[in-house]
């Protein structure tokens, strides 16, 4: 089992390495000459050469990649083209903000989705199940910005319960921060809850069609007891991987939500960089999102291996 887990973690690291190479290729080598696009048409040849040297563009691609990767591994993402500041200094507090928002949303979403998912499975086909299903479907279908602006219009413009802009800085006190982030967190909760609810319900129902559950029913047990005592322990591992996948989704879902609420997180930073064509920042944000996503996916697989003995033996 240890070997299998180590192999899975190794695979995750390998994926991350390949993804970093693709990101570098995509952002640095394909677009042609970054220097001339930054300096514009007024650049003299001497200016261009100097700027290229400053960015290290006169080096061969492979050595540039290795230098960049070495820097990233040591927390050095280089400097932003637009304001010449160290990217890491801007990225670190924003990353904490993003994690705070995602964590808050997860805290709201987990109990609701797993609870109602199981409830919907227990009452399959009845009113509770149908209502939960349709509500989940509607939530999945709504774009993040629709939910976000609906909440802003109702709860911060028409009734001033919450601030419409979730602008926080590093010295915002904790209580105020929670209050400011509540609306974005609710927006994200609605989205992932629907996914998690449907998947929880389906994995419980998949277990419900197995012979041992049929046996439990034939013994005369009530539906509630069959679900909680017989089906749920076996449904636990798919539910846990669903949760891990949705947490990964949360970290990405922040991109749009952060822009709706102008919340200073990594997502907003990345969109800002894309509109300004600030390549080093785009790379840094890309690699941060990629590592979080791949880490959570790897974690989901490792947990599945630990929890489900059937996955421990490679076929």
């Amino acid at each position, binding site marked *: 089992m240890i070997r299998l887990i180590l192999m899975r973690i190794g695979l995750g690291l390998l*994926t991350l390495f*390949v*993804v970093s190479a*693709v*990101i570098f290729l*995509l*952002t640095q080598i*394909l*677009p042609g000459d970054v220097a001339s696009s930054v300096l514009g048409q007024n650049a003299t040849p001497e200016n261009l050469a100097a700027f290229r040297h400053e960015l290290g563009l006169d080096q061969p691609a492979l050595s540039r990649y290795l230098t960049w990767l070495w820097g990233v591994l040591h927390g050095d993402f280089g400097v932003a083209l637009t304001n010449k500041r160290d990217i890491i200094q801007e990225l670190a507090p924003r990353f904490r903000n993003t994690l705070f928002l995602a964590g808050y949303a997860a805290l709201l979403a987990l109990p609701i989705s797993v609870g109602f998912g199981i409830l919907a499975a227990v009452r*399959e*086909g009845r009113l509770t199940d149908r209502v939960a299903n*349709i509500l989940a*479907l*509607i939530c*999945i*279908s*709504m*774009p*993040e*910005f*629709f939910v976000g*602006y*609906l909440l*802003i*219009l109702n709860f911060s*413009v*028409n009734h001033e319960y919450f601030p*419409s802009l979730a602008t926080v800085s590093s010295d915002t006190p904790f209580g105020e921060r929670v209050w400011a982030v509540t609306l974005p967190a609710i927006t994200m909760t609605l989205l992932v809850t629907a996914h998690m609810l449907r998947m929880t319900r*389906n994995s419980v*129902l998949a277990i*419900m*069609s197995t012979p041992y*559950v*049929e046996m439990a*029913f*034939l013994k005369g047990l009530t*539906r509630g007891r*069959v679900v909680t005592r017989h089906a749920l322990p076996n449904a636990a591992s798919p539910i846990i991987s669903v949760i891990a996948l949705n947490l*990964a*989704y949360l970290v*990405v879902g922040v*991109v*749009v939500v952060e*822009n709706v609420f102008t919340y200073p997180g990594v997502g907003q930073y*990345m*969109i800002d960089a*894309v*509109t300004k*064509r600030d*390549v080093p920042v*785009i790379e840094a*944000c*890309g690699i941060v*999102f*990629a590592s979080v*996503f*791949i880490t959570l*996916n790897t974690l989901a697989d490792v947990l599945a291996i630990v929890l489900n003995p059937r996955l421990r033996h490679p076929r």
Partner: protein
Amino acid sequence: MTIFGQKAPATALVGLLIILLNVLVAVAGPMVAPYGETQVVGGGWDPSSATTWFGTDQIGRDMLTRLIYGARMTIGIAFVTTILSFFIGITLGLVAAVLGKWVDVVISRLVDVVLSIPLLIWALMILNVLGQSLTSLVLTIAFLDSTRVFRLSRALGINLVALDFVEVARMRGEGLWWIIGREVLPNAAAPLMSEFGLRFCFNFLFIAALSFLGLGVPLPYADWGGMVKDNVGGISFGLPAALYPAAAIAILTVGINLVVDWFLSIDARPSGAQAEM
């Protein structure tokens, strides 16, 4: 009411109605729109009235007209993208399934790399390189989305390739494209159909989100995501203009999802515990 010999629940009928209405509006477009696409009919963010049912947008164009023209653009682009994505995805998926060996390994690993980080992050980076145009938007999303279609069609293909009739066709000496087109594809068509609905929803929301972020459909076309972005300034004054296009996106997606949900439930009704009486 029954459709194709299956009893459709009320939710599916509502979904069908929404889709029909949207397609009708998108096709009829200029014929039903009360004003011209860029015609200014009033002040900025006028409230709704008898002449402008949904009020006006930030520079005084009729919101209803913009919504109707936007339907064309938004639905059209998502549709083209999904078709392209299915063409790429199914071709590669079935080629990988039928040829197997190193072809399968190479394509599958590449797809794994693409799917190992969120598609939105890829889209942001690719669009940064390609620049903002309708073509690059459609190509980027179609390419990214085709990886998901690839996964499904490859899985379906591998199950079918193991069956006798494919073996027989191979022994008859049929070529790769005959096997894909005449033996495998017709048998994989049903699950791919409901996948089409899901992928369309996904692409539709994806493009709307990109337009909202200012990286999607470029100016001067009217599209729902971009209209939300243009009108958000009104929100802080309590003006709901930005919510109309956003609601239009939500309603169409709900409609498609309702129908797809029904399709899926025909295919595999959750069997529950059959012994429960």
